[in-house]
């Protein structure tokens, strides 16, 4: 129970702050920067701790091979095959005292500022242009929050990549290196770039067992010594440190084990989150507030499917192919041999 003391005016203020805290859960008032959680973008509203408020396990609720589950909530998923005119993303929290901005880097390299909605369930929205053309491909969505807390300049970045693509528009983008490879934005203070997230047809390609090459950049330059953590939605995580080129490599674990093979689905989408953290001893002043350190935190979610090796077999394929070839070859040979007749010459004795 909270006891209020002091004069009536002070009590009223405290009550107002308390009500504000209850009504505005997305706004963080953490005093210590170490208590701050990384900023995260998601399709569904997030709790301030970063968990998605869909109220169910996304792995268990994925579509089984036998059909879609009826009457059950499905996790928010984004298809790289279906373009929509407006994209909306949610992020888990923001600090009241910090500056917050959002950017979208379009596939043609242009940058737009999406519409930001702060407060309860903070989110952002931006329009996507319909049809093929220069905006066909990956949109990088960023939320950048920076402010001084406890004499530490904290920069939190959340990144999301959304594919603006329809197979009906064709796949001419496969010939463009800037479209088939993830791009960074030089104006972002701290950024995660994960290579080979999609194939040349703009379809997500990460599977269990992939060795992910993760680059950590600050204003487009590599960052050495950043702690990079990959966490899957099942809770497995691994932390590595970026090298002098800002590169860290993590092998993605296989963590999709359905109870029986009939429940296995090759298009099952697991999710993972890459978090990068880097602290720099650098003093300065930001908007009149002095700081002694800089703390960078960035996140970048993506999805992964089961590896093809989990459900396909070359040996069976080759065996069947060779068997069919041999049986039909032997069949033709036997047929020809059986139709051979010994040469019968007729000699006329004149």
């Amino acid at each position, binding site marked *: 129970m909270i006891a209020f003391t002091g004069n009536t005016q002070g009590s009223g203020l405290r009550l107002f702050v308390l009500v504000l805290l209850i009504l505005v859960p997305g706004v963080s008032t953490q005093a210590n920067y170490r208590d701050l959680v990384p900023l995260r973008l998601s399709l569904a509203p997030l709790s301030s701790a970063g968990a998605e408020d869909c109220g169910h396990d996304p792995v268990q609720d994925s579509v089984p*091979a*036998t*059909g879609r589950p009826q009457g059950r909530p499905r996790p928010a998923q984004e298809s790289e095959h279906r373009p929509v005119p407006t994209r909306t993303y949610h992020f888990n929290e923001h600090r009241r005292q910090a500056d917050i901005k959002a950017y979208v880097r379009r596939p043609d390299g242009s940058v737009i500022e999406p519409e930001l909605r702060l407060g309860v369930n903070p989110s952002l929205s931006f329009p996507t242009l319909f049809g093929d053309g220069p905006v066909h491909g990956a949109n990088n969505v960023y939320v950048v929050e920076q402010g001084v807390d406890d004499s530490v300049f904290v920069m939190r970045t959340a990144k999301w990549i959304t594919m603006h693509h329809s*197979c*009906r528009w*064709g796949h*001419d983008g*496969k*010939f463009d290196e800037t479209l088939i490879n993830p791009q960074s934005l030089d104006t972002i203070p701290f950024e995660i770039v994960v290579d080979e997230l999609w194939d*040349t047809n703009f379809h997500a390609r990460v599977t269990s067992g992939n060795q992910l090459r993760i680059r950590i950049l600050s204003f487009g330059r590599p960052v050495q010594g950043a702690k990079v953590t990959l966490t899957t939605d099942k809770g497995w995580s691994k932390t590595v440190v970026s090298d002098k080129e800002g590169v860290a490599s993590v092998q993605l674990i296989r963590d999709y084990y359905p109870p029986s093979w009939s429940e*296995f*689905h*090759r298009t099952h989408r697991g999710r993972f989150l890459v978090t990068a953290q880097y602290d720099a001893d650098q003093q300065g002043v930001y908007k009149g507030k002095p700081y002694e350190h800089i703390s960078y935190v960035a996140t970048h979610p993506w999805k992964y499917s089961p590896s*093809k090796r989990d*459900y*396909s*077999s*070359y040996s*069976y*394929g*080759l065996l*069947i*192919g*060779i*068997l*069919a*070839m*041999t*049986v*039909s*070859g032997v069949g*033709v040979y036997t047929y*020809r041999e059986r139709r051979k007749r010994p040469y019968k010459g007729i000699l006329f004795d004149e």
Partner: protein
Amino acid sequence: MNSLQKAINSTSISRFRFYFQIAAFILLLYGGYLAINIGDELPTFACVYTDLRGGSCYLLGFQHQMAAPFKRMFSGRGIAILIGLATFVGFFVLFNKTWCGFVCPIGTIQDWITKLRRKLGIRYSTYSEPVFQRLSKIKYILLALLILIPMAIGNSFFGLPKLNHDWGVPFCMICPGRTVLPLFSGDFSQLAVDFSSKTKMIFTVLGMAVTGLFFAGSFVKTRFFCLFCPMSAFQYIFSRAGLIRLIKDGEKCTRCGNCYRACDVGIRAIADDVDSKNIVKDDCMMCFKCIEVCPEGGCLKAKFLTLPLYESTSAGFFKRMDGKNNGQ
């Protein structure tokens, strides 16, 4: 007849075709490396499973489109289907069935296998006419299935449950183009059997069995697969509108049978039919070998609208035969 036309009529179309096929093969399988994409509605097996191809076979997109519910098929989406079909017909009408004889990579591979057989001195096989007639119906059955099966994904027939999306591209799953063509770009992934669902498993097993049959069959029978090709059946619907035509003057035909013996597919009507002017049959791949071996001047002709492309002449026939006899 001008001298250029005479020179063309005296050449070996088979030799020209051999080099043209190589160029088309490179274009369709590796065109992507040169940022070439002819189109996604090609009337030939430019397989979508080959990553950096120079164009795509229409059948995959067509099967995908057929999976839409009827309600959507007859709405705005129908326009996209019609545009795709019109593009396919446009490509096809321009060159008629020369797509099969000169461009198709699967046809080219079969021709290479035939060359290998000849080098090895192994004799070829032919079908008897009744067997040929029976087998040539298979491609129409396959064509009907590749339309109806995807339709049963988006629509329920006779109250039966809809099929799942693993049935999406049934012909591609059994087409040797899917398994064989990616091999030329170093992709062996299509040779695997997919155990992720029963449907996928059955289709990939069938696909590998057909691949085995494709190699064995092509080795003993020229253009073995073409007789079963649903693309050939689909093309034939629009063949009458083709701008390139194979024309026969029945009055000049002596029914020597050279054309039938030279025909890789084994179309008997090319020799027997002396009444039809347009002699393109559903199994014809317009390789023009029949013109090459015809000794009767003006009996068989290939024309682009009214423009003569290649014509049988006695002089040309004897020149080619002399060349063959002299080992050229």
